[in-house]
């Protein structure tokens, strides 16, 4: 339970943070049908969504593995409670992420 919940919490927390900071190591350029590690100068219309998801997935796998390997004292209901509340907070935070990406940049 703890590892699964930690995975979900880590994913939903890290994804908007990668997004708001434009941290995608994988980019896709649909006009050129080209994938790249990092942004390629000169190419336009770069898509970062795949990279953000992949970043969050890798981060969540690491955190999930740590939660599984490292014994922590926590009540049985703490992790499910966290995993049910945090996504709602990140859903609201994502509104801010869109605002930043579309109107402040």
């Amino acid at each position, binding site marked *: *339970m703890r590892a*699964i*919940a930690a*995975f*979900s919490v880590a*994913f*939903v927390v890290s*994804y*908007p943070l990668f*997004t708001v900071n434009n941290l995608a190591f994988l980019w*896709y350029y*649909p*006009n050129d*049908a080209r994938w790249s590690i990092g942004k390629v100068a000169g190419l336009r*219309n770069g*898509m970062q*969504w*795949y990279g*953000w*998801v992949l970043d*969050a997935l890798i981060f*969540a796998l690491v955190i999930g593995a740590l939660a599984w390997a490292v014994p922590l004292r926590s009540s049985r*209901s703490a992790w*499910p*409670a966290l*995993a*049910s*509340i945090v*996504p*709602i907070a*990140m*859903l609201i935070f*994502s*509104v801010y*992420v*869109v605002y930043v*990406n*579309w*109107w402040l940049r």
Partner: protein
Amino acid sequence: MATITAILFIHLLLALALLGAITHQTISVLWPVRATSPSFGASYRAVRSAIYANPIVVLYLCVALMGSLLYPQYRISVLPWLRAHEMTPYGAVFEYKEHVVALGLGVLPIYWYLWKMVDLREQQLARNIVTAFLAFCVWFSFLYGHVLNNAKGFGS
């Protein structure tokens, strides 16, 4: 273009199936039937919620995969059109949709675990919240996808 259209329709049909399943499950846990009744509403709510979990996970992954295949075409042909017609906010809300879908992907493991690996008499509040969260993700994505499709128009 024919391939994109085919993927769009498969995406729509799978999304419809997902919408039906998650709505059934969410209503059955948030508004459970207390006594047996022959009414349509009671029958709609009186489903065995847990059996929906696996199909919902599989459908969510398939719909997200289909959406990710369509996404480059959106960036090439739809988003520039929206910008050219001063409909930039439509693009912004679409970006929110992509975040909503991603957050739903992150929640899938704990959703599945709470439904399939935890006794249904335990962790009910967490299970209900996660299920309702996923239902919001599906409903928002479905409705906004429909709005966006209408904004430009099929085949235009």
